[in-house]
Each structure stands twice: as structure tokens, then as C-alpha cells.
């Protein structure tokens, strides 16, 4: 309603020169732009303030005419130089209205949309971190570049950053031949910047930008060499009020996690109809208990695909993004194509249906369109990993997570480099790293290099009450059971498929994440928080007993 009033002001701007929509600030009026909590707290914008902020920031200097506005919409337009600003209000609370527009005598070169979508009835009663995030916006853009090409990104202050791709150097896994990481050479306004494109890497902040190398054409078929995500560094990674973490009450974030672009492995009997054994994960896998972990919709949207047999569920939001869940154990009755779901609404249970590798987990992916989903692997999607980290941190921001991924493949006897630098620090900087190996040795520092011999198949599990004493003073205290290290000896044979030739007599070894090492991290002045994936010292070796989460993985 408020936006309609601002449109009235704008239409009558030839005679109206001063106006407002709100009372400015106070402690109780719902029409205040700014609500001030007393006796203390953090002031926040009320809906009317959000609408005023939107108009204040996105209005031209001169009004222009607009015609042909469909029923139900209220629209005004203005311009500033060669930019045109369009203010559109959907006055219908019960449905969406689709409309297109054109600018007479001009060709639209580029455009941006900002929107507020508030539930028809809500009342803001207090400041919350979610509301703080809501006040900001997430303006992630995608830059698709070939070497030599430049992408211009505009910051909030109006300045532009020129992002130029200089070089791409991919590094392949020596055993299975999949790309493991890429070094991306960029220039930001002429200043060189080197980014690592690899699983578990979070975006880098530089010169007011937040930037991430999402993927390259070595990983995925795409017309350009590199896909980068770019944000204004003042914006959040993802707008957490519109994207939530899909697993409520989840405490296993880094347990059995498989990130975007991570090389993953399926065994002979693990259900991949294409018979693939190794491939890059094109979503993010979150381990959990089959049939015992609720899954909720991360977004508001409409179900566009529901396949209980394979455990696939796809939900499209109003922007056209498709959220894909895989391997669900069950999908609630009533959640079927066409059903409208709300963010946070329970849709099913986590499971291991379909090509899960018998690994009980939720596969989460976001595709930019339904066409991309139909193409499946080749034409994807968005690097969801930073979104999930941000959404998880919005709930449990102080937790420390040891990350020693991605999965690696190596040959028995060759050194493996285990890198803990992608660990998530939580509320403070990481003060120290310690690697405990199951041969009784330890190493310090963020990166540990070690060769492994005499590997035997075994599964480690810890199923009692968290991680014990060494986690005291830390928030990283998973409830219930959790998975620890996993080492699968996989002597190579000719039937294995696409494993490149290696010297005779050596077996291929599949190392899952930190595998044989427990990575321990600590915040300054606190006890160590063990790696969620591989704290060998705490794990009980259950030599032949199947792991409840990751049984029969090979």
C-alpha cells in the first residue's frame, strides 16, 4: 500500500515537492520508518521504511510516462540520463501478475530488479539478525569470462570494478584424471588477483568486492572458460531471510559433507544407472540419518517435480531458481507438482534413494532455470556451498568447523597433502591446527603432507555423546552420533573403468576427506574442536561393523 502512495507522489511530482510516507522514528507506532527498541537494542527498519529506502535509492531525476499497465499493477517510471527506473506494485495479494515492458525508441542494454515481497500480514516486533540481513540485499551476479575478457561490476557507491580474466590453470587428479582444482588469474582494475577454484573454497573479499571462482569449462560444459560469482562486499553471501538451511536442528554440518565440484565416488552396486564411478559433485551433499532427519524447503516456491521413488524434489522460486533435493527417503504426501511451499516448510525425510552411493545424505543443488535442470550435469547451476555455509552460520554462527576436504585419490605410498585452510572459523579466528593420524603421529599447521602405507579397509564410527572432553569450551558439540574417518582400500583392477594406468603393483586408494587424519582446530584460548569428519583419536574402530551412515560405500 505504501508503495502505491509513493507512486501517487511520483505521478504528481510536477506540483508535489516534499512528501513522506512514514513517521520517522519511535518506539511503538507501526507506521514508523525506524523502530527503536527501548531500553536498548538495535534499531531496525519497519516495512514502510524498507519501501521508502527502496524508492529513495532507485528513482530517477525526472518522471516519464508509462502506459499499458495491466490490471492489478500500479506502475510509475522515471529517468536519470539514459537510465530508466520503473516502480511496480502488485496490488493483488492473492496472485502474481506477469507483465513485460519496453522503452519507446530505445533498446534496453541492461537492467536490474530490486524487490520486496512481504507477507500480507506480518508484524515486526523486535530486531533479529534475520531482519538485519533483510535490510541488506544479496546482489550476487555471475561473470562468464574467457581469457582476455572483462566483466564490469557496479558497487553500491556507484563505482565500477573491472574484472578481467587473465589465466586458467587446471590441475588434474593423478589417479582418476578428474580436475581437482584450478588457479584462476584475474585482474581487478588492473591489480592481479589469484583465486583458487576448488571445493570448500569460500569467496575472497578485495577492493569492495566479494568474488569467487565457481567453476571452469574443465569441470563442466559451458560456453565460457570460467564462471565467477561477484557481490558487493557489503552484501551478504545469500539473503538468509529468503534462503534457509534445509535441515532443521542439524548439527553435522561438516560430517560427511561433499561440496560443489568435489570429486565423488560411487561403487559397483551403488545405483548410478550410468555406471559412473567417479564424477564431480554438482551440488552439496549433507550427511544425515536416513529417515530420521527432517528436510524443509530452503525457499518459498512451487513444487515442479516430485519423485518419491528416486527421492527427487524440485521447487522453483519466484525468480526462476530451481532448488533440487536428491535421495529423499520420503516425500510428504501433499508435496507434489504444483504445491506451493513456504521457506522452512517440512517436505520430506533425508535418505539414500537413487544414485546416492548408499550414502545417506541430502543432495542440494540450485539451478538457474528448469532447462538447466533438464540438462542435469553439464549445464548447471550455482555454487551452493557458500550459500549453505552462510545459511548454516545464520543459525549456528559461532560453530567452528574443521574442513579437510575435498576427497582425494592417491596411490599407496604417495604423499597426500591435507589442507585445513578451508575450515570455517565461526566466531573467532582459528588459532592453531593439529593433525592426529591413526598411526599415532601428529602434525601442526594448516597443511599436512603425509604418505600412507598398509591401508586396510575399515570404517570408524563414534555413536555416543559427541566428541568428549577436548571439545569443552567450544560450540562444536555434535549431538548424538557422528561419522569419523573412512578409508577404503580399493585395489585397482581392470574392471574399474576410467582409472589411468599406473605402475604395476600399486593400488588406487580412495581417501574420503581428511580420511586418515583427525584435524583439530582451536580458537585462541579455547580447547580444541575436533574435526567433524576425522578425529581418529576419538573414533572407535569398529573393524567390520557397518557404519550407520556410510555403509558399503565401495
Amino acid at each position: 500500500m505504501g508503495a502505491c502512495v509513493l507512486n501517487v507522489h511520483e505521478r504528481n511530482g510536477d506540483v508535489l515537492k516534499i512528501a513522506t510516507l512514514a513517521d520517522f522514528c519511535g518506539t511503538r507506532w507501526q507506521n514508523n520508518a525506524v523502530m527503536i527498541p527501548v531500553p536498548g537494542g538495535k534499531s531496525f527498519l519497519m516495512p514502510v521504511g524498507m519501501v521508502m529506502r527502496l524508492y529513495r535509492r532507485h528513482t530517477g531525476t525526472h518522471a516519464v510516462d508509462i502506459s499499458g499497465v495491466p490490471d492489478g499493477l500500479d506502475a510509475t517510471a522515471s529517468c536519470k540520463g539514459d537510465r530508466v527506473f520503473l516502480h511496480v506494485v502488485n496490488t493483488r495479494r492473492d496472485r502474481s501478475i506477469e507483465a513485460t515492458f519496453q522503452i519507446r525508441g530505445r533498446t534496453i542494454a541492461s537492467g536490474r530488479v530490486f524487490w520486496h515481497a512481504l507477507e500480507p500480514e506480518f508484524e515486526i516486533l523486535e530486531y533479529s539478525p534475520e531482519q538485519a540481513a533483510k535490510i541488506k540485499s544479496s546482489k550476487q551476479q555471475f561473470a562468464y569470462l574467457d581469457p582476455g575478457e572483462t566483466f564490469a561490476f557496479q558497487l553500491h557507491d556507484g563505482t565500477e570494478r573491472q574484472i578481467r580474466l587473465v589465466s586458467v590453470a587446471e590441475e588434474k587428479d593423478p589417479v582418476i584424471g578428474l580436475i581437482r582444482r584450478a588457479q584462476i588469474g584475474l585482474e581487478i582494475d588492473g591489480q592481479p588477483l589469484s583465486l583458487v577454484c576448488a571445493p570448500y573454497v569460500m569467496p575472497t573479499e578485495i577492493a569492495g568486492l566479494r568474488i569467487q571462482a565457481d567453476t571452469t569449462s574443465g569441470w563442466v560444459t559451458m560456453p565460457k572458460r570460467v564462471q565467477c560469482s561477484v557481490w558487493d562486499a557489503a552484501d551478504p553471501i545469500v539473503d538468509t531471510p529468503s534462503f534457509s538451511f534445509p535441515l532443521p536442528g542439524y548439527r553435522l554440518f561438516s560430517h560427511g559433507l561433499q561440496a560443489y565440484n568435489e570429486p565423488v565416488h560411487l561403487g559397483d552396486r551403488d545405483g548410478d544407472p550410468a555406471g559412473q564411478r567417479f564424477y564431480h559433485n554438482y551440488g552439496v551433499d549433507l550427511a544425515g540419518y536416513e529417515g530420521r532427519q527432517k528436510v524443509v524447503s530452503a525457499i518459498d516456491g512451487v513444487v515442479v517435480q516430485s519423485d518419491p521413488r528416486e527421492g527427487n524434489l524440485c521447487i522453483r522460486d519466484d525468480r526462476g531458481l530451481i532448488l533440487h533435493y536428491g535421495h529423499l527417503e520420503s516425500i510428504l504426501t501433499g508435496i507434489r507438482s504444483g504445491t506451493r511451499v513456504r521457506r522452512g516448510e517440512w517436505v520430506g525425510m533425508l535418505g539414500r534413494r537413487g544414485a546416492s552411493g548408499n550414502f545417506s545424505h541430502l543432495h542440494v543443488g540450485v539451478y538457474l532455470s528448469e532447462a538447466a535442470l533438464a540438462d542435469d550435469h553439464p549445464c548447471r547451476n550455482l555454487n551452493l556451498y557458500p550459500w549453505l555455509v552462510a545459511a548454516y552460520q545464520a543459525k549456528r554462527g559461532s560453530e567452528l568447523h574443521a574442513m579437510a576436504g575435498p576427497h582425494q585419490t592417491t596411490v599407496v605410498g604417495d604423499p597426500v597433502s591435507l589442507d585445513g585452510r578451508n575450515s570455517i572459523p565461526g566466531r573467532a579466528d582459528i588459532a592453531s591446527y593439529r593433525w592426529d593420524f591413526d598411526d599415532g603421529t601428529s602434525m601442526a599447521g594448516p597443511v599436512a603432507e603425509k604418505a600412507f602405507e598398509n591401508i586396510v579397509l575399515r570404517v570408524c564410527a563414534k555413536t555416543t555423546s559427541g566428541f568428549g572432553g577436548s571439545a569443552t569450551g567450544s560450540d562444536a558439540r555434535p549431538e548424538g552420533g557422528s561419522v569419523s574417518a573412512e578409508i577404503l582400500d580399493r585395489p585397482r583392477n581392470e574392471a574399474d573403468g576410467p582409472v589411468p594406468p599406473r605402475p604395476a603393483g600399486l593400488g588406487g586408494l580412495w581417501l574420503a576427506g581428511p580420511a586418515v587424519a583427525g584435524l583439530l582446530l582451536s580458537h585462541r584460548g579455547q580447547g580444541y574442536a575436533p574435526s567433524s569428519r576425522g578425529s581418529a583419536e576419538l573414533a572407535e574402530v569398529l573393524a567390520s561393523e557397518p557404519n550407520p551412515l556410510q555403509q558399503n560405500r565401495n
Partner: protein
Amino acid sequence: MNALDHSMTTDQISRRDFLVSVGIGTAGAACAGESPRPAGPPPLQGAMVIDPRPKFELSPYLYMQFMEPLGVTDSSVDAAWDFGRDVWREDVIEITQELAPTLLRWGGCFCSYYRWREGVGPQNRRRPMLNQLWGGIYNNQVGTHEFVDFCRRVGADPLFVVNFEADGRKYWAVSPKGDVRSGTALEAGEWVRAF
């Protein structure tokens, strides 16, 4: 609660033909001024048509705010002021910078019984006044200087409402306690001269 404040890239927009399907929105489109096709693209059936020729100038003050001591009705100015430290609450400054009003007006009905001199000078010697409309006693700790300071910090132009003969209302001209609250043109002129 669901609120989105998002932008889309050009890429996504072209994909969806700029569908406007939720809530309220503002879209900005940059036109190629020197279009290779002066006539522009062929008209779309049913599309909204924007004529980009400027019709009239829009005042930046269409997005102003006003601040008024609302007494016991809604503790606006008092809640924003840190009385212990004689400064504005920092969280109020920050959120107002976010709101970015172009102009802030001091007072509304309140100014019909506001005497500006009571709100200047050392804070411990400022005279409290009966807030006739909104209830309670206004302490005058926030006066002209403090208000202008707030405006500067949030980047807004200040605007003062003058007491023009108590807006012609007898019940405001003299308070129930017998104070003369009506202001004169001379008093308003002195206010302008003083600042």
C-alpha cells in the same frame, strides 16, 4: 516472515522477459542512448510502454522524514537520544543512514507550542515544556544544534517548522499552566538569524 530485497542480473532478466510477479519492485534499465536501431525493437503485444522523454523534474524531497517529540504517545526523539552521554544513539544513526532521507523536518503540530530558545544553550539549563498535544513533559535536551547534528550525520538537509502564532489555536497559545506558547514572526526571524 518473508521479505526479499534482491536484484537480478541482466542475464536472468532476459531469461524471464522481465517478469514482474511479486510484491512491489523497482527496476532500473539502462538504455543504449545511441541505439543502432533508432526505432527500437518492434512493439510487444500487451507490454507496458515507457516513453523515456523527461516530463518533469522529481523533487528529491519526496523521500523526506520528520522528527517530532511525541511525548508519551510514541517516544521518538527521547528514545533516539542517549541521555547519559548526551549523544544520539549510534544504532539510530546507522539505520537512518541506511534509510537515507534527503531531508529531515523538525516538528509538526508540536511546533505550534515550541519555543526554540528553550532548546539551545547548556543542556542542564534547558527549560522543560508541557507537550500539550502528545502528552508528558518535553525535556528540550534535543534542540536545534542536536537536530542539525543528526541531519549532518545522516546526510539530510534540515527543515524547521516555525511556531506561527500557535497555528491560530487558542488552546495551544497558552498552556493549561499559564505559559505563553505562541510564537511570533520576530521569534522565527531570530531563529533564522541565530543559525
